[in-house]
């Protein structure tokens, strides 16, 4: 009998230790969600998250070497740093440095949008503040950050206060809502938030871009009818007027689910609204088009299909760049298509980088009319200059 018990114990012990062994074999390290920006002097800044801190690094040699990190938030807190929900960075007109991020709360899907600034070129950061005045333990996350032509800091995010209030009354409500706020005092405080739209998608990043007149436009996945998840376009009004939200894509992808796949937007000096977005009504497809709110986009082009994800777009004069991640059986490639006629035609896709491990969504940056791609990978941050 004793022998039987010993045999049983021997059989059991590898099973007990297997979990520990497996977790030891798993790759560890910070999540890859990161954002980068050039300041007015061409110095590159990068934010990501590690050990409960948003950390800031800079580079004077276009990303080849990075400085030691500086903590943006002195006191550690949980931070979302995944693909669609990553820390953001933007500069004010005098290189004021602004950082926002989403902070997970205790319950699933909850979060607070956080903000901090440095007015002395990263020497010191302000104590982080919560942007929204609503402090219910619900979703306020997927923050998007931009600075308008007057130096006003604009932040938009996904918010679930309305779905909670509506369904509590037994009424239906699809998705979440988009709210936004702004700061007129350089980030010392934010005005009470206002609702942009009801029934938006719950888990896709919001794209913000500056208009030629300095205003900030938003492009985001919205819900139409019975879970048709197309995109809406609007200008975020900060003058007391109501923002006019219009449907801007008409792919008719119906899904009661989480695409985790937000769009990209870049607006040319001529006002052309260059956009990229994802839908999987048939094959998963990344689309390019020029937004004509209320109507189908102009110059639509299927940029890439199977295995393509998380595109970004940029424009300078008549050059338009589109980059995306292409996954295959052996890892990822960073892909590029370029147009030199303001988006009427694009050249063939070309591979500009590859990585066998995990990668974050690519982000297009510009310096003196040249496009660079910020690509955070499990083997390190890379800044890749697009071929000229």
């Amino acid at each position, binding site marked *: *009998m004793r022998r039987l018990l010993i045999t*049983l114990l021997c059989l059991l012990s590898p099973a007990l230790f297997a979990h520990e062994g497996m977790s030891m074999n*798993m790759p560890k390290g910070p999540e890859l969600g990161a954002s980068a920006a050039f300041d007015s002097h061409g110095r590159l800044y990068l934010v990501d998250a590690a050990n409960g801190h948003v950390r800031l690094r800079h580079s004077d040699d276009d990303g080849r070497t990075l400085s030691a990190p500086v903590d943006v938030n002195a006191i550690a807190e949980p931070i979302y740093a995944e693909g669609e929900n990553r820390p953001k960075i933007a500069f004010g007109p005098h290189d004021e440095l602004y950082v926002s991020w989403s902070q997970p709360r205790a319950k699933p*899907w909850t979060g607070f949008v956080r903000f901090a600034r440095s007015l002395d070129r990263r020497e010191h950061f302000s104590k982080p503040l919560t942007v929204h005045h609503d402090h219910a333990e619900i979703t306020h996350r997927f923050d998007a950050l931009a600075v308008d032509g007057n130096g006003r800091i604009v932040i938009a995010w996904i918010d679930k206060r309305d779905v909670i209030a509506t369904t509590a009354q037994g009424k239906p409500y699809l998705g979440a809502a988009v709210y936004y706020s702004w700061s007129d005092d350089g980030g010392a405080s934010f005005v009470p938030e206002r609702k942009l739209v009801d029934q938006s998608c719950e888990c896709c990043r919001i794209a913000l871009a500056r208009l030629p007149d300095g205003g900030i436009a938003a492009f985001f996945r919205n819900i139409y009818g019975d879970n048709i998840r197309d995109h809406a376009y609007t200008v975020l009004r900060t003058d007391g007027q109501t923002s006019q939200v219009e449907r801007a894509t008409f792919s008719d992808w119906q899904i009661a689910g989480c695409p*985790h*796949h937000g769009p990209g937007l870049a607006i040319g000096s001529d006002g052309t609204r260059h956009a990229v977005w994802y839908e999987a009504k048939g094959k998963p497809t990344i689309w390019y088009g020029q937004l004509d709110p209320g109507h189908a986009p102009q110059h639509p082009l299927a940029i890439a299909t199977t295995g393509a994800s998380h595109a970004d777009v940029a424009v300078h004069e008549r050059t338009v760049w589109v980059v995306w991640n292409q996954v295959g059986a052996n*890892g990822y490639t960073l892909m590029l298509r370029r147009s030199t006629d303001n988006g009427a035609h694009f050249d063939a896709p070309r591979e500009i980088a590859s990585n066998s*491990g995990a990668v974050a969504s690519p982000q297009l940056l510009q310096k003196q009319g040249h496009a660079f791609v910020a690509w955070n990978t*499990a083997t390190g941050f890379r800044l890749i200059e697009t071929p000229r």
Partner: protein
Amino acid sequence: MKRLLLAFALWLPAIAMAGSLQPLTAAEVPALLQPPARGERIIALWALDCAYCEPNLEALAALQRAHPHEIELLTVTTDSIEQREAIEARLRSMQMAGYPARAYAEASPEQINFLLDPDWGGETPRVLVIRADGSRLGISGALTPEQLQKLR
């Protein structure tokens, strides 16, 4: 001693259930896609950050209970197995802990997505049906009653 052995024997299944979440690596995907000997294998893909996934899993579990000999149901979360505690807690709260469960165990989740189904962009919930005749069906989003009927 006999009583001790009995207590131990009763304790064993509890251990097996509590640790039932298994990793899914890229190398293990082909085995998962092998056609079952009979009926259908239903791979229910879900994520912690997906509010639509819970009702979908409930509906698939109900379908499996209605056809226990034909349907082999397993859950696969696209979250990393490093989040084992949160995943197991959610599986228990969704009353899905009784089904075989896997969690992604690769640093690049999109690669497993691609290997499981190249026509899937990673949106959740996703259901992948593999039939004994080798045919497959993939559907994204919470399943409608009509879609549920088509699974088998």
